[in-house]
């Protein structure tokens, strides 16, 4: 019961936040709503007892990326941005895509309802005491099973970082 309440609470906040991110005309308001959506997603991770993912979501997305977003938005002259056209005019394409998406989601709901047992209620996660420590398990799988993808990803990030430094450097 508690799990269902928490899941639908955070999920609805995330969806509303995401919608408002796209529709609000002020860039800073958009950023705030995006932060709300990201925090709600972190809440869903916590409801699934994924403590480590919860805090990584907050540190990386909210504490890192969004701070830089807001930082840049404040440096941009917002008055100009508000007067510019913010929405493209591909209404018909958008309509088709969103209808397809709606059909998919509807199909999912329909099939869920047909499943035996739970229906739309969220299955309660296992009690915390019975789970292995979260961060240790993540570390183990990252450094043993998924070592190669992990290293490739870190090299990719390093390349991006060096690229940014090279581009930002003044040519003398």
């Amino acid at each position: 019961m508690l799990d269902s309440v928490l899941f639908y609470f955070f999920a609805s906040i995330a969806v509303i936040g995401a919608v408002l991110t796209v529709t609000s005309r002020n860039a800073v308001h958009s950023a705030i709503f995006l932060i709300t959506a990201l925090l709600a997603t972190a809440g869903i991770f916590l409801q699934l007892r994924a403590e480590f993912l919860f805090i990584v979501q907050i540190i990386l997305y909210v504490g890192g990326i969004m701070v830089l977003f807001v930082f840049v938005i404040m440096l941009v002259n917002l008055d100009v941005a508000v007067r510019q056209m913010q929405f493209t005019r591909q209404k018909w394409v958008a309509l088709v895509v969103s209808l397809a998406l709606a059909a998919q989601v509807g199909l999912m709901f329909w099939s869920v309802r047909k499943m035996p047992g739970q229906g739309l209620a969220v299955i309660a996660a296992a009690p915390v005491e019975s789970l292995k420590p979260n961060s240790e398990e993540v570390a183990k799988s990252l450094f043993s099973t998924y070592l190669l993808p992990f290293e490739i990803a870190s090299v990719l990030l390093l390349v991006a970082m060096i690229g940014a430094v090279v581009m930002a450097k003044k040519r003398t």
Partner: protein
Amino acid sequence: MQAVIQATIDFLKAYWAPLLCGVIIVAVLPLIAGYIVLVERKIMADMQARLGPMRVGPHGLLQPIADAVKLLIKEDIIPESADKLVFWLAPVLSVGAALLSLAGLAIGPAFQVAKGINIGILFVVGVSAMGIFGIVLGGWASNSHYSLIGALRSSAQLVSYETAAGMALVCGLLFAGTLNVTSIVEAQYNQGMWFGLLAPVAFFTYLVASIAETNRAPFDLPEAESELVAGYMTEYSGFRWALYFLGEYTNMIVVASVATTLFLGGWLRPFPRTHWLNFLDFFPALSMIAVGAYCVMRAPKQPVRVQQLFMLAVAGLCFVLALVLAGPLLLPALKPSLAVAVKPFQDGILGSFWFLLKVSAYIYLFMWLRFTLPRYRFDQLMRLGWHFLIPLSIINVLLIGIAMIVGSYLHMEGGWLIFATIPASVIALIIALFILAAEQKHQPQRAGGASDSYAG
């Protein structure tokens, strides 16, 4: 309906303790922050050979309450061209993040809101880092140049110094091998040594970075009053301003607690495993008796009768506290059968005493630095962060890791590890100083640092 009520009851049954702790923290913390301000003003006065606040209550002891009343009844001004919603939201974010991060801290072995939280230190650091939005959004929403520049400076400063602080924390976590706050302190007990002594360079890096992160002098550029009026909170007044202030002081407590937990042995007393020092357990009670006796001695010299009574009341409070602190130690001596029942109380009371003592010492160090060092210039601040602290902390993590592997090959156990980690720290410091020197030779210091785009 029945299910909802049942679920609520179950929820309260399972979570009443953390909820109660949370409510207590939220209720008591403004008072603590107010008294930290008073202590700060008193220390400042002492260092500048003045008396400080003396009017409200004996020695100004009721000053924080008077200040709080003043702030609450002040007019609440919102600038005409401000973004109302964000202006309202920003101080709340600032305070909320700071208070929430307290939930992950353990004051003594028994007192922790989020008990046994596996991601302990990460939770505290990550959540308190969200407080930066309060500053940035507040500065933007005020629609004022001073505020905006203050907010920009603040966010640049926080982002720069967070890397160094994080790397310093990684050093301590390498020794502990866990993120859980309780396990970190237990690891220091087993090691027989504070991690701050094992990795002094990491502790130093964290100290500097934590001063910069809490926006305090000598790094209080975001609110440099001689340049920016009051930085991001220029347009705030009354209660909203008080909220920012509360957030700032809570953040101070948070960084001090993190440093205490990770580097200063948490709630362990000095030398916890040396048995002939067991008399140190009586130190809390004895210090309280000393303070009480001092109050009794000074009371007749107060000029006003009310103040005499007040001093005596403070003395009485100290004696009661001494009794509370000594009680769990004395009871088993009188009645040995109680020893097992009293043990958790003994650990809890003594533990929280040592923890709070270390946190206060750390905060005192903050104040001492504030009244001793002049303010940095913004480009100097950025150079210190990027050219010295970040390389230092990264090299330090690398070398400490190597030192730990070498130490395990040489069978250095417990405190003996210090003979591997101290040389590693020294080498890291030397390399970082070389990098700094090379950097400055390569790029001679510009007068005024005018080319730095963030310098206000």
